[in-house]
């Protein structure tokens, strides 16, 4: 995001600066002389004629004649303005002299320091008039005073212009970049919130009310989010209803079994146990399918610092209790505390499913280890001494209801979705889960979680 922001900002800014530089360069290289020539040659030509007339007036009638000529001339033809300075340094019509003229040497060219007169031929603005006795008058066209004052002509001031240009265009580009990227940021925030499970997040009216394409996009985005929220809402309601509707008959079934048990004495106990066990399996399967469905449709992940050694230890403890009733043991080794940011209940479900699956398929013992990885992270290895899997199925065993041991026998019932849930839960915690056969026989599942 910020990258786009800076990209827009820098590129627009550079383009503006380059444009200005190129314009100035082309102007000064290609057109400067020509423009100056036309402008000043006209001035020079007219000054040539005027100074000849003035010289004539001076020759014929002296300074007074020159003054009369000047007055008449300026009254009839105010442009170009003319000044005539006598040898005493005063203007003939007592008009103020341009600043700095008192410092003028007779042949100096104080005006238009950078004008073309510094370069070629005679000055277009100043001519000398001579009397017979050697007195010298000067006739001149005063330079145009720059609007910003003489200060703006100084070199350090001229260096300021590019700086001001850069700052102004930079400010404009910043505003432009912000204008373009602000809506994108809003889209991104809304998208992230929705992905994180907050289905109520919207881009909001501040962008949707804009009249441009961003406004239209925001309206469409929000409409899409409404639709997703609605769909997921009804799906969740459906899940709750399904859960309730499937479990109510199971509850009645179990109540009925209880009654039979009560009335029939202990003759049918084994069969009733079987019914209760199957009802329990069915109930567990319903629970698993529902939690799988919940995981697939936007489960919210709540990451907290969790010590995996402790978590796995607790799961193993519970599983050991369960395994002992089937004469199966679990060995557990863990390094020191491995604290990661994970969703504890999701990871608990994932690891528990893998551990219980291992116990179910093991002959005698299951091994569970928690160890740190070389890069910051944790690997949890769960291996059993069971028949293992067909190596071709290493990926497929994480698919729902895929149950087949390497010897082709159908695995225990009710196991078909536990590993699928485990994979989804691990993925939601940004981890990876892999299955393989151990070299010395048996089945190994590795869960790797990286510290982020």
């Amino acid at each position, binding site marked *: 995001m910020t990258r786009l922001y800076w990209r827009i900002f820098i590129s627009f800014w550079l383009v503006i600066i380059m444009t200005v530089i190129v314009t100035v360069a082309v102007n000064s290289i290609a057109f400067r002389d020509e423009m100056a020539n036309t402008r000043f040659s006209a001035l020079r030509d007219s000054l040539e004629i005027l100074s000849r007339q003035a010289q004539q007036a001076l020759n014929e009638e002296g300074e007074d004649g020159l003054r009369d000529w000047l007055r008449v001339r300026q009254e009839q033809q105010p442009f170009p303005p003319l000044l005539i300075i006598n040898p005493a340094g005063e203007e003939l019509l007592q008009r103020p002299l341009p600043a700095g003229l008192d410092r003028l040497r007779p042949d100096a060219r104080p005006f238009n320091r950078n004008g073309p007169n510094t370069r070629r031929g005679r000055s277009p603005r100043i001519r000398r008039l001579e009397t017979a006795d050697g007195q010298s008058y000067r006739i001149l066209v005063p330079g145009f005073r720059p609007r910003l004052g003489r200060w703006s002509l100084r070199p350090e001031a001229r260096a300021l212009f590019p700086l001001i240009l850069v700052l102004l265009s930079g400010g404009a580009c910043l505003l432009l970049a912000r204008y373009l990227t602000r809506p994108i940021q809003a889209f991104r925030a809304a998208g992230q919130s929705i992905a994180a499970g907050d289905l109520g997040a919207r881009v909001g009216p501040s962008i949707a009310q804009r009249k441009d394409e961003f406004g239209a996009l925001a309206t469409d985005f929000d409409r899409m989010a409404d639709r997703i929220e609605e769909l997921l809402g009804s799906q969740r309601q459906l899940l*709750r209803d399904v*859960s309730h509707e499937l*479990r109510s008959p199971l*509850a009645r079934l179990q*109540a009925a*079994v*209880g009654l039979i048990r009560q*009335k029939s004495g202990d003759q049918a106990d084994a069969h009733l146990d079987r019914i209760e066990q199957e009802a329990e399996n069915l109930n567990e399967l319903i629970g698993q399918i*529902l939690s799988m469905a919940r995981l697939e449709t936007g489960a919210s992940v709540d990451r907290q610092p969790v010590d995996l050694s402790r978590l796995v230890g607790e799961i193993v403890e519970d599983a050991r209790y369960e395994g002992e009733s089937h004469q199966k043991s679990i060995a557990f080794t863990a390094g020191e505390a491995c604290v990661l940011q994970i969703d504890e209940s999701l990871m608990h479900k994932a690891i528990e499913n893998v551990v219980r699956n291992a116990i179910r398929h093991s002959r005698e013992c299951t091994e569970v280890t928690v160890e740190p990885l070389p890069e910051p992270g944790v690997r949890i290895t769960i291996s059993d001494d069971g028949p293992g899997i067909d190596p071709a199925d290493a990926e497929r065993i994480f698919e729902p209801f895929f149950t087949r041991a390497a010897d082709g026998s159908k695995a225990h019932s009710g196991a078909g979705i536990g590993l699928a849930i485990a994979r989804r839960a691990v993925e939601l915690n940004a981890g990876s889960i892999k299955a393989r056969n151990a070299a010395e026989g048996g089945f190994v599942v590795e869960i790797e979680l990286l510290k982020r």
Partner: protein
Amino acid sequence: MAHETDKHPDARRVLLVDDDLQLCQMLAEYLNGEGFEVVTVHDGQAGVDAANAGHVDVVVMDITMPVMDGFEALRRIRKASDVPVLMLTARGDEVDRIVGLELGADDYLPKPFSSRELVARLRAILRRTQVSSKETGRIAEGQISIEPGSQSLFRNGEPVPVTATEFVIAELLLRSAGKVVSKEELTEKALGRRLTVYDRSLDTHMANLRKKLGTADDGSPLIKTVRGQGYIFVTH
């Protein structure tokens, strides 16, 4: 309408509140066979009325019900009485469980459940209310005192309404005041079952109890959590 089963002179009375008529009928028959006297009603409002009418030793209540759901019914029952309540929750729905306990339920049982499990839970709840009634006298520690005989708890001599489970927890902590009581022990004795990883029931009961007991004069909690070990009733 309330439906009553056969009466035994000493039988404990169970109020069963569930909108599943067939389930209620079978459970009532089963509980009857186990020596309970059962009253069944089928919506929350009727449950509240029956519970508050008295003569009920324990309430078993479903959450999803017409007219008034189990949570609202529980809230209304708790306004008037401390009768033990066992909530029937959907399996795996932790939110339902916690909300129920926070509202003052004594325990919960995920549905579907075996009838044997229900009876075991009911007996555990009733045992808590029975056992201590044999005792007389008062146990006091600071501002708090309890009378096991009448199941009542007092703060500065004023009675504080607590549920049966909260009372047992308070009693266990008060009897070993100044010593840490483990979560395992509290769960086993107050809830009648083994502590498992995701069982947060005890924590919820404990939070309710703390709220009711208030704090010591200096503002410090009367019951402190000892991380990884359990809880301790602080002595001064």
